[in-house]
């Protein structure tokens, strides 16, 4: 055992927490730095980097908006023979993604038999007791003050969807508090019926 290692070990195994080696000091210890761990980053540094990545991933640019157009969604060509996800809606809201997700959580929390599953990048899935997806909500950042909310429901869960979304979550999200900017109309953005290959005439 080299003397460097001996010294390193004794610093690690110091029974006195005040004098024991700290994480920063570990990275600076001579023995440690000689080994393959030079490149290792600790979770603190990584953590910040990760958060930034997520933020930029959810930020929409002009082409993202354009790709929302139903004219560009050719899945309609395959309609009639297979019925996948049913209708959905999109809104523009003047809220932060955290607030939107928070509101959804709040409302769902009050209901029996429904569970919320958080997805990365500001999305939540609302599931029924049997684990079936009832509604899925995804929030994308548009500008500093605006987000786009995309709501999709699964085919066959029409009844539950109407209950949950139409009567409870939607009014909560769209009923803005009084103090909000009123002259800009966009906060109440409207919806687009997003049909995904289903013949619901």
């Amino acid at each position, binding site marked *: 055992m080299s003397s460097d290692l001996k010294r390193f070990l004794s610093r690690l195994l110091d029974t006195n927490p005040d004098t024991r080696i700290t994480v920063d000091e570990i990275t600076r210890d001579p023995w440690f730095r000689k080994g393959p761990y030079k490149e290792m980053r600790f979770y603190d540094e990584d953590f910040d980097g990760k958060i930034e990545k997520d933020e930029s991933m959810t930020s*929409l*640019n*002009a*082409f*993202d*908006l*354009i*790709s*929302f*157009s*139903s*004219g*560009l*969604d*050719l*899945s*309609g*060509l*395959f*309609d*009639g*023979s*297979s019925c996948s996800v049913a209708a959905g809606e*999109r*809104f*523009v809201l003047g809220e932060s993604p955290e607030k939107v997700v928070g509101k959804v959580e709040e409302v769902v929390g009050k209901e029996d038999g429904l569970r919320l599953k958080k997805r990365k990048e500001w999305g939540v899935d609302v599931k029924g007791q049997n684990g079936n997806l009832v509604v899925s909500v995804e929030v994308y950042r*548009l*500008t500093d003050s*605006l987000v*786009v909310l995309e709501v999709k429901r699964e085919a066959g869960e029409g009844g539950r969807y109407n209950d949950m979304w139409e009567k409870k979550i939607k009014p909560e999200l769209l009923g803005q508090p009084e103090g909000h900017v009123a002259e*800009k*109309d*966009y906060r*109440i*953005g*409207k*919806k*687009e019926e997003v*049909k995904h*290959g289903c*013949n619901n*005439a």
Partner: protein
Amino acid sequence: MLQCLDGLKHMLSVVANCCEGDYKQPWGLENPEALARETVFSVSEIEALYELFKKISSAVTDDGLINKEEFQLALFKTNKKESLFADRVFDLFDTKHNGILDFEEFARALSVFHPNAPVDDKIDFSFQLYDLKQQGFIERQEVKQMVVATLAESGMNLSDDVIESIIDKTFEEADTKHDGKIDKEEWRSLVLRHPSLLKNMTLQYLKDITTTFPSFVFHSQVDDA
């Protein structure tokens, strides 16, 4: 019992159609292997695609060709909906520039949307799609036009200031040469950084097309390559 009769009726009508179909030239289906070679589709996928084509092309006039109206009908379930984007897509499909789509054009264009198609093809197609004036680059003006059209289609309301700032941000990131336009190269880097921009360029349905349009039971004369 009733279901059985229905099934029988359906089967008989399909068989009858099969015979009738021989009067018209099956455009492009004379040589499915050739088309299969030139696209990412297999021969049975080409045959299944042909079933879809027949369905779409017979909606208004049964002439074995898809006109703009039938295309709109297939996409939106209504021929009343005008869409800047559907028009662009139709134009890009229509490589012969005669205002109608024959099966060959249909299959070749859809090949780009197959999950297995090369990403470069998807990048090219999407670039041409957004290059409204076909000048070889995407101008700021064209981007604004498309954003405004999308918002109008969906009833989403955004003020002009907000739209301008979104486009500013986009160009800042995309227009690395700072010439006010996005050329093919810049588009490519943008898309490689934001793969979600290509999500409309892949149709998962194409992978299952032989199960949704089983033509092989009645029509196939060739072995799958």
